[in-house]
């Protein structure tokens, strides 16, 4: 492999560095109108009446639309994926008579400018009848959906072995309650769409800042009754996703609806306050954990019952709590496990995956349990982990719990978990770090070292397609249904295709996220783009080269074995002057090819359908110092050892991990979505929802171990979410260590300063 594995500099950079990126907000079309959304100020209310008359009279306003204008397009959106135990509900394009969270879209104003639309928005008269709202996960809260009076969206139990018996038999049993609060992906670019209906062509073109353009096309087709060939959805340059752009939102169909209704292009750009209010969130769960173990620290039984806040709708069904439940045991061998949850509706923003997708919660739980077991048995924390880790000889390891898709059990396919942990410890100089921290603590400083291990579920199906085409000028285009919001697919997929084709990445253009370029696609989430999309591209490119060889052999009149490829040229190895280029082969394939024994077109489309998820793994070590006065935590050192199989581009992988860790630091120490008792968002802007800055994130040391995945042709595993998964756990571990024997224990994330202050050891007499 020449380019796979190379730290190839990015093809995206020249345009992005010079301000020539094209994000959805940069797209303007002649005659384009601008939309502003009217959102419910109530967490729960009956929408009695929407009156757009005053708004319509405002100069520059073209239309005001509410639910009654939608007709048959006002159906609830499908739920993806469904689940037999789910009592699911999804939103419709506009709220149908009832608002179920603050920020739910109730009406839309379309005008000749953004400024005018916002002015007119204030003139839309909506009469609400506020109703009591469910703001807790406790039973007895007001019903979010009339047909689910107990607010139980789903209740699932996953089990391996007999956990009750194992707990009874265990020499030691301890219980702990753990909690995680809500947060959001918060990409730097908010959401947005431009939609254009060309009546002459009968063609709807939509540019969407989305992770799932093919799904948007599907939903548009369904709700607006348009066949796929009349709808093209393009994800242009997208400024980050992290899950916030993962689902099909009401606006993703509403804006196209407006474009067709008004026969004019319409643009909607979400503003940051709207994003804080209405973009999906995740993480909130309350866990009640009981663990049985022996005096050596081996875990014999683990029972976790948790409640999951799913918000007002379930566009992604039970995916998030299923991921938490099924991934609970992480990289550890636990003979008896029971993981059960209740997913409850609340009158809040819907919960769908954001970077990590339920797994950070699972990692937090199991890693807190391991630290607890270490403390209870007096064994060292790394030793306890090593004693419980799945060994390389055990692979593939059947965890014994069904995976979140219920397509089988969670099977850890590849990895060397003890090695990855040992490498992280070595890279950090763990023993020396601990000794230094202990010495600092003896002098009154609150310095601590923590560690955490994880496995990450990656490469989910059902499939991706890759399409590779050579045109008559010899240009190579690679189309993929995977999408990029910063994951560098234009470069990494070019590296993959280049290796298969015998060319260089500069010879290949990658077009991602355009339904016009490739008919079938799923999108980017769950760390699947490179695994599934990259594999599909590899297969397609491989097939294309095979076809080119067949063609070249026929054209040159030699056997394939006599051919030699140098760059874009195929030559007869014995008479090098007899040669043909990719371009010439493409031209040959554009005509009658029956005599050549192949179908026309120098093009190949292949699907990759992974047989199962493939699992990355890693270990993080962190050092923190806590200021005894303010309780502020500074992360002063961070070491990572990580295994995501073969790395297409180590530079890109490291960047993904660094970004994931930064997000993890935010979710552990800074970011918290807070609602008041009426469902009003208190952390509603960047004054209050605090993202980590350059002074909050340390430099990190990253070590790679590559154990190839057996589940795809490239041997790769996903990495997009890896960095984020163990961060709350490793910081909790380090903070506990810093607090010492007399300090409290971290059982909740995020850690606000007041909570942390309460955990500080009592001051010695005489200290400030």
């Amino acid at each position, binding site marked *: 492999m020449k380019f796979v594995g190379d730290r190839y*500099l*990015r093809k*995206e*950079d*020249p345009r*992005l*560095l*010079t*301000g*020539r*990126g*094209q*994000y959805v*907000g*940069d797209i*303007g079309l002649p005659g384009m109108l601008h939309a502003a959304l009217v959102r419910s100020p109530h967490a729960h209310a009956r929408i009695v009446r929407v009156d757009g008359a005053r708004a319509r009279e405002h100069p520059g306003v073209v239309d005001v639309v509410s639910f009654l204008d939608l007709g048959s397009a006002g159906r609830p959106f499908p739920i993806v994926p469904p689940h037999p135990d789910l009592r699911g509900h999804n939103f419709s394009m506009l709220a149908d008579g009832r608002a179920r969270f603050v920020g739910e879209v109730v009406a839309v104003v379309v005008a000749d400018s953004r*400024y005018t639309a916002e002015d007119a928005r204030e003139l839309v008269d909506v009469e609400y009848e506020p109703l009591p709202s469910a703001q807790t996960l406790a039973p007895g809260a007001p019903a979010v959906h009339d047909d689910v009076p107990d607010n139980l969206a789903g209740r699932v139990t996953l089990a391996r072995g007999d956990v009750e018996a194992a707990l009874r038999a265990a020499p030691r049993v301890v219980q702990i309650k753990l909690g995680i609060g809500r947060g959001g*992906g*918060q*990409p*730097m*670019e*908010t959401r947005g769409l431009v939609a254009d209906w060309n009546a002459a062509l009968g063609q709807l073109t939509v540019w969407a800042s989305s992770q799932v353009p093919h799904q948007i096309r599907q939903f548009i087709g369904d709700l607006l009754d348009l066949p796929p060939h009349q709808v093209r959805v393009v994800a242009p*340059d*997208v*400024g*980050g996703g*992290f899950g916030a752009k993962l689902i099909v939102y009401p606006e993703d169909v509403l804006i196209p609806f407006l474009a067709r209704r008004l026969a004019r292009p319409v643009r909607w750009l979400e*503003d*940051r*306050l709207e994003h804080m209010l209405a973009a999906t969130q995740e993480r909130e769960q309350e866990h009640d954990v009981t663990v049985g173990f022996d005096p050596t620290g081996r875990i014999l039984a683990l029972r976790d019952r948790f409640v999951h806040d799913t918000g007002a709708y379930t566009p992604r069904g039970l995916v998030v709590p299923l991921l938490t439940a099924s991934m609970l045991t992480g990289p550890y061998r636990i003979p008896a496990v029971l993981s059960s949850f209740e997913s409850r509706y609340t009158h809040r923003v819907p919960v769908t995956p954001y970077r990590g997708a339920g797994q950070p919660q699972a990692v937090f739980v199991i890693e807190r349990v391991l630290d607890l077991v270490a403390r209870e048995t007096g064994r060292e924390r790394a030793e306890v982990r090593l004693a419980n880790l799945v060994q390389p000889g055990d692979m593939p390891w059947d965890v014994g719990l069904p995976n979140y898709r219920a397509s089988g059990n969670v099977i850890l396919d590849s990895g060397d978990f003890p090695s990855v942990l040992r490498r992280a410890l070595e890279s950090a100089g763990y023993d020396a770090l601990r000794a230094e921290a202990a010495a600092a603590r003896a002098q009154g400083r609150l310095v601590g070292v923590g560690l955490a291990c994880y496995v990450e579920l990656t490469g989910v199906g059902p499939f991706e397609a890759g399409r590779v085409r050579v045109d008559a000028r010899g240009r190579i285009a690679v189309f993929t249904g995977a999408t990029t*919001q*910063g*994951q*560098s697919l234009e470069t990494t997929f070019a590296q993959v295709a280049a290796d298969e084709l015998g060319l260089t990445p500069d010879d290949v253009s990658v077009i991602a996220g355009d339904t016009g370029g490739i008919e079938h696609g799923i999108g980017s989430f769950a760390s699947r783009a490179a695994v599934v999309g990259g594999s599909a591209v590899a297969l397609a490119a491989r097939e294309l080269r095979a076809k080119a060889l067949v063609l070249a052999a026929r054209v040159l009149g030699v056997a394939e074995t006599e051919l030699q490829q140098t760059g874009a040229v195929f030559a007869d190895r014995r008479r090098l002057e007899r040669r043909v280029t990719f371009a010439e082969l493409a031209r040959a394939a554009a005509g009658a090819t029956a005599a050549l024994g192949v179908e026309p077109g120098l093009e190949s489309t292949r699907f990759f359908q992974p047989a199962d998820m493939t699992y990355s793994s890693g270990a993080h070590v962190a050092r923190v110092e806590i200021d005894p006065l303010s309780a502020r935590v500074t992360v002063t050192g961070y070491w990572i050892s990580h295994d995501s199989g073969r790395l297409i581009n180590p*530079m*890109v992988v*490291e*960047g*993904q*991990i*660094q*970004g*994931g*860790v*930064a*997000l993890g630091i935010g979710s552990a120490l800074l970011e918290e979505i807070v609602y008041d008792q009426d469902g009003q968002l208190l952390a509603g*802007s*960047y*004054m209050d929802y605090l*993202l980590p*800055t*350059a*002074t909050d*994130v340390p*430099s*990190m040391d990253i070590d790679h171990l590559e154990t190839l995945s057996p589940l795809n042709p490239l041997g790769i595993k996903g990495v997009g979410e890896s*960095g984020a998964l163990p961060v709350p756990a490793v910081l909790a571990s380090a903070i506990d260590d810093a607090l010492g024997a007399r300090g409290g224990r971290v059982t909740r994330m995020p850690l606000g300063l007041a909570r942390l202050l309460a955990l500080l050891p009592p001051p010695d007499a005489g200290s400030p």
Partner: protein
Amino acid sequence: MHAVRLTVNGAERQARVMPRLLLADLLREEFGLTGTHLGCEHGACGACTVLVDGEPVRSCLLFAVQANGCRVDTVEGLAGADGALHPLQEAFRARHALQCGFCTPGMLMTLTAYLREHSSPTESDIREILSGNLCRCTGYQNIVQAGLNAAAALRAAGAPR
């Protein structure tokens, strides 16, 4: 409506604007310079940073009318007329200091202004002056290193641009 005349990336531009038109909107919508991005519209994320009379400012917090008579520099003006990348842009590319690219113009303009006045920053200095520019993708490490590398390149070249 107010008439405004300003210099943008060295070129004289004019427009008639309503008072409430944000400078960011003037640049993006009127002048087609969409490299300056709006991430939060309330002065917290730094993505909209441009230079006004050489100072890094948040263009979402300035009205276009206020820029009348001013010299404005945006990311589109960083590269040379021949297309040669500014040392900062080169450094960003070499160090993979951008992923989605949305915060990047703001990062570049903030660093451009800072490195003109401070030729030998430490890592800690760079982290501090970038604390008003949010990035969700990179974790900052590569951006900071690129800033340091660019400072070194500018020192070697003798004078900041």
